[in-house]
Structure formats: structure tokens, C-alpha cells
């Protein structure tokens, strides 16, 4: 599947930045030796670079998990920061192998954009943030407010639906980049900032005076955020999907990065199947049998990832809520490995 025309090949050679994405993503990933992962341009807790250029966050940890599953080495990832506009084309054109960029799963994205959502690694909902001194207690008091949001995201569509449904007037101010939205809200251009609730908590850290702002209780939409792959490559789709499921299963079974080595000697057949000491599940995916072991060992199970990046002890201080395991009243549920 390598139909390279001469001119293109020269162009590629010139910057040495060819990413060959043929039919089998796994083969390409193995050939180039790293996973190219599309992430956000900076959203604390999800995918955010520090001053040294190291990326952290839930979405980033999923990418690291995929690398651990494929290579047994979670560091073999490269990140491409993408704007909301670029993200789908970047995936479609093969610039990135997987898009893990707090992207909402919707039907039209599944059917019209040629994408596949490989699960939900964070159940979110859209919320509103306002200044405390406005004295607003509920989103239903927002009639006549101006609302800052990101352009072309589901949030912009949701807020339109919400205000129309409740017959409230509002003024929408939509920016291309998340940073610009925050800056405009901070500068007083808008009364309300709306995005996914997790994003509100994350972006609040960037405001001049975070304590002056409050997130309203209403959640006006369902925002299942998850990793996205191209359609038509079921093997790669499975790898991404099961990397996520492995983390959830590990939490359910009590396997953590700390005890994973001990658990390898466990008699529990479920644990054995997860860690690859029984069955050939990894081989069936086209990767090593110890894939899930590597994911858990190097990245951790879902609760470790959650707590490390957005949990109560971080600056974002988000509780598990709907992201708790199904057995604890949440929505995170993984099919069994068997």
C-alpha cells in the first residue's frame, strides 16, 4: 500500500517527517517504533505539556497505555497537539494513529466522519462557570447573559439547544482555541464560560483569580469522551479499545501498578487472563501476550490514572462521580477478558 509519488517522497524526505499510515496501523506503528497520538493543545488533567514539554493527563495516559501494550514501553509515544478544527482531518489523513483529545462521541462523528470511538475514558457533561459576585445559583438564571465557548464543538451546539429549550436569551461568543475562550471570559467579555465540566475545573486554574469563579450545578448534556481511531482497521480499533478496558478490568480486579508483579502469581483465573499468564489474548490482538501487564505496570489501572491526573488530590479536585466503576454506582464498565 505504498504508492508514493516522486515529488511527495522528496517532500517527505526533506523534513524527514513521513508517517506512513497504510491499511494496517499496527504494522506502521511497529515499523516506525512509536505511537503518534493526537492530543489537545493544553488542557490540564487531560493532556497538558509542562514547561519542559512533557505531557501528562488522562488522555495522555491512554496513549502511553497503547504504547505499553504494543511495545511494552510506555515512553514510545509522540504527541501532536491539535486544535478542534484539525483533529479529525489529522486522524483521517494518518497524521496521528489515535486521537485521544477529550473528544465527544456522537453519532454523526461515527457515521459521517469515518471515525470509530474506541470506548469512553471519561464521562463528562457540559456545565457553566460564572463569577461568584453575580450571585447566580442556577443556569436557569442566565437569561440575557453572554456565553463564551469553543467554536464548532458539541458544547456550542448544546448551549444553543439549552437556551432555546428554556426560552432564554443569550449572546454566544465562540473562539477557535480554548485559551482564547478562557482569556475572553477572564477579561470580562462574557458572563458565562461553558464547556465540559472537567474542562471548567481545569481551565479555572488558568484564571487570574480562580477563587472568584463558581461552577453551576446544572449538567446540560452527555459528553462521553473517548479515544478515536480510523474506520476500517479493526485490529487497531481493538487494541485501543482493549487497552482502555484492561485498565478498568484491572481496577475491578484490584490489580495496580504496585502489586501487578505479585498478582502474576495469582490463582484467580480472571487475573491470569488479564495478565496473560493464561490464554492467548494478546496474540489474538497481534501484540504480546503480556500487553495488559505492561499497561498496568507502566501506566496503572483506571483509578490510578484518574486519581493521578484529575482526582481529589490534584488541583482539579474532581470526584469519581459517574466515572466510578459500575459496581460502585458509576458508568465505567468493561467487558470481561475471556
Amino acid at each position, binding site marked *: 500500500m505504498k504508492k508514493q*509519488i516522486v515529488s511527495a517522497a522528496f517532500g517527505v524526505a526533506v523534513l524527514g517527517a513521513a508517517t506512513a499510515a497504510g491499511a494496517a496501523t499496527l504494522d506502521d506503528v511497529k515499523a516506525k517504533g512509536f505511537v503518534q497520538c493526537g492530543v489537545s493543545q493544553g488542557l490540564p488533567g487531560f493532556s497538558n505539556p509542562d514547561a519542559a514539554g512533557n505531557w501528562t493527563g488522562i488522555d495522555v495516559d491512554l496513549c502511553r497505555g497503547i504504547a505499553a501494550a504494543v511495545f511494552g514501553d510506555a515512553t514510545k509515544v509522540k504527541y501532536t497537539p491539535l486544535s*478542534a*478544527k484539525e483533529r*479529525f*482531518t489529522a486522524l*483521517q*489523513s494518518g497524521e496521528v494513529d489515535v486521537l485521544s483529545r477529550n473528544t465527544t462521541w456522537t453519532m454523526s*462523528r461515527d*457515521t*459521517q*466522519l*469515518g*471515525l470509530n470511538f474506541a470506548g469512553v475514558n471519561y464521562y463528562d457533561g457540559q456545565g457553566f462557570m460564572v463569577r461568584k459576585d*453575580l450571585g447566580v445559583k442556577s443556569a436557569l*438564571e442566565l*437569561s*440575557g*447573559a*453572554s456565553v463564551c465557548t469553543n*467554536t*464548532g*464543538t458539541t458544547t*456550542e*451546539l448544546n448551549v*444553543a*439547544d439549552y437556551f*432555546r429549550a428554556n426560552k432564554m436569551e*443569550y*449572546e*454566544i*461568543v*465562540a*473562539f*477557535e482555541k480554548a485559551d*482564547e475562550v478562557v*482569556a*475572553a471570559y477572564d*477579561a*470580562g*467579555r*462574557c*458572563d458565562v464560560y461553558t464547556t465540559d465540566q472537567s474542562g471548567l475545573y481545569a481551565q479555572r486554574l488558568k484564571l487570574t483569580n480562580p477563587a472568584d469563579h463558581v461552577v453551576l450545578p446544572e449538567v446540560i448534556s452527555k459528553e462521553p469522551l473517548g479515544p478515536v481511531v*480510523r*474506520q*476500517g482497521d479493526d485490529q487497531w480499533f481493538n487494541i485501543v479499545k482493549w487497552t482502555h478496558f484492561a485498565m478498568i478490568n484491572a481496577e475491578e480486579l484490584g490489580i495496580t501498578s504496585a502489586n501487578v508483579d505479585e498478582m502474576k502469581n495469582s490463582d484467580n483465573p480472571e487475573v491470569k487472563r488479564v495478565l496473560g499468564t493464561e490464554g492467548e489474548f494478546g496474540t489474538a490482538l497481534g501484540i504480546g501476550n503480556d500487553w495488559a501487564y505492561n499497561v498496568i505496570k507502566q501506566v496503572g489501572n483506571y483509578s490510578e490514572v484518574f486519581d493521578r491526573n484529575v482526582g481529589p488530590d490534584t488541583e482539579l479536585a474532581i470526584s469519581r462521580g459517574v466515572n466510578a466503576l459500575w459496581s460502585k454506582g458509576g458508568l465505567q464498565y468493561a467487558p470481561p477478558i475471556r
Partner: protein
Amino acid sequence: MALTESASVDDKPKVALLNDPKIRGAIIQTILVIFLAWLVWSMVHNAAFNLAKAGIASGFGFLDRSAGFDVNFSPFLEFGQTSTNWDAYLVGLQNTLILAFIGVIFATIIGFIVGVARLSQNWVISKIAYWYVEILRNIPLLLQIFIWYKGVGAFLPDKRNPMDLGFLGQLNAAGLFAPKPVFADGAGVVGWALLAGIVITIFIGRWASARQMKTGERFPVFWTGLGLIVLLPVLSYFIMGMPISAEYPVTGNFGPRGGMQVIPEFIAMLLALSLYTAAFIAEIVRAGILAVNKGQSEASAALGLRRGPALRLVVVPQAMRVIIPPLTSQYLNLTKNSSLAVAIAYPDLTAMFAGTALNTVGQAVEILLMTMLTYLAISLLTSTFMNWYNKRMALVER
């Protein structure tokens, strides 16, 4: 046989086919066309293949689908719940044209003032004009937009403590809340009176210049016209019982409400675009005036014209011939530069259609093609119009 022999007798090398310029040209052009056709074909083929592989929808069906998003600035067109992506395109185009139109007017006025000021004998004025031009045109436009929007905008008062501008309304971080004219019954009469005033003035102007041509007598067209244009509407306004009133913004929960809100994005874009373009127009005006033969102004001075009338009646009309072609390209630049609105969320064509609509629909090929062709059409139409105008000017000057 004979031919070959004669050739060898002349000892002339047989002329290569490629040395015939006509044939060579034909061959080169054929190769070029084939190459380009191949390039276009491979691009289309690749795009079709990539789109099909990714399962992306194509075609223009999305234009009829409901857009789903909202817009905060649409002076003339309605945009609401049932609006389609095509409506989004129209609203974007409308906002681009409004911005470009007002920007062109402002830029022209400021540009002419600064351009003439640079040639002023007043040292302070000409130095100010010089530094205006040199500073404004050597700073990137996008940066100037940000300076107006984020830099200066940051000093605007909070939404709930707006700056009171008296009869102009209120100004705050969410924009200018100007009074909105409210038309009651009979307001139409005032409009017609205004129109009538303008039409009559035009006729008087024609009659006056014809009379001046014939008899040399002058008629105070300006003052008569001003009187007509002001008096007629004012009279009808009072006769109809004051049908036009202004709706002033009132204070709501979230700062001023009602009135006519001019969003800060529009103000920032307008300021940046017109001030930046004015710097270039000023240089064009200066060059145009300098290009007029010195004898012209000397002759008008000799005829006893003062500097003002000499400039207005003799120099500028001649300078216009030099000024108009580059002025056209500045107008086009301003129109194209209005697309930078995408950086600060003014919903113009690029932000609204190639931004928001593209992000929700995802059909990049169709949307970007439509956007680019629209700008191209605007450019071509404007330059055609200005060429026509330029021709007319040139003929009048004969």
C-alpha cells in the same frame, strides 16, 4: 532522392523539429497540460480515495441541514433555531461585507487626511502623519487586531459598570450599547423626505454646473443641498409627530441590555483594519499628489486659487488617476484581511463558515472551496468595478 541530395550538397544539417518555435511551443504546452492534468487528477483521485476510505460524506447536501449553532452579530439577516448551514454562509458573507464596506470608508477618509497631512507645510502635522504611516504599516495587522481587542480591550470597564457615553450609549467589555432607533408609523415619510432631499440636491448640482459652464455664474450648491437634506427630513419628522425615537439600553442582570449592541470584536476589527489600511492609502495619496506636475499647482496659484481650492479642484482630480489603481488593491487587501476576524471571534465568512460550520459539518473540501471562491469572486468583482471607474475617470480628464 533529389531532396536528400540537395540537402547534402548545401551541407546544411537537417533542421531539428524542436528548433521550430511553433512546434516547440506546442510540445511544451502539451507536456505542461498533461502534467497539470495528471497533477489535478491525482489530487482529486487521492482526495476521493481518502474521503471514501475514511467514510466522509461529500456533496453539498449539508447546506440544507440545520446549523444548530448561534451567532451574536447579524444586523440584517435572521439567524435562529431553524437556520441552515447555507444561512450561516449568508450571515458570514453579510458580516464580511459590512466590515469591509465600513472599513473601506473609514480607511479612505483617514488615509486621505493623513496622506494630505504628510504634504502639509505644517511641520508638526507632517511629522505626525509620517510617524503614523511608519508605525502603523510596519506592525503586523494580526498583532494590531490583538492589541485593540485584548490589549486595549482589557482596560474597558466591567460589564456591570459601563462607561457612560451620553447620547452615544454605554461602553463596556462586551461592546458598545448604542441607542437603537425605533420606527413608529410615519417614519417612512421621513426616510422618503431624506431621499427626496438627496435627489433634488443632485438635480440642482447638475443644473448648477450646467449653468456655470454656460454663464460662469456660480450657485451655492453645497449650502442649498445641505439645507434640503437636513431640512426636509426634520420638517417631515415634526409634521408626522416625531415617529422616530431612540431605545436606550437599560441595566439588566448582566449589564446593559437592549439598544443596539456593537460587539467589541467588530469594533476591534474595524479599528485595526481601517487604521492599518489607512497607512497604506496615505502613502498612495501622497505619491499620487506628488505625481501631479508641479506646474499644475503653480499655475493654479498664479490663477489666484488658494491652496485649499487648488488642491481640491486641480491637484486631487489629476492625482486620482494615479491613485485609483493602487487604491483598488488596498480595498481588496482590506476585504481579504477582514478574514483575520477568525482570530478574535467576529463571525465573518471565515470564522462563521470556514470555522464553526466546518467544525460541525466536517466537510473541509466543499466548505473551504466555497469560502475561497467567494473571496475570489469579491476580489474580481471589486477590481472589475474599480477598473470601470478608473476608465471613466480617465475619460473625464481628457
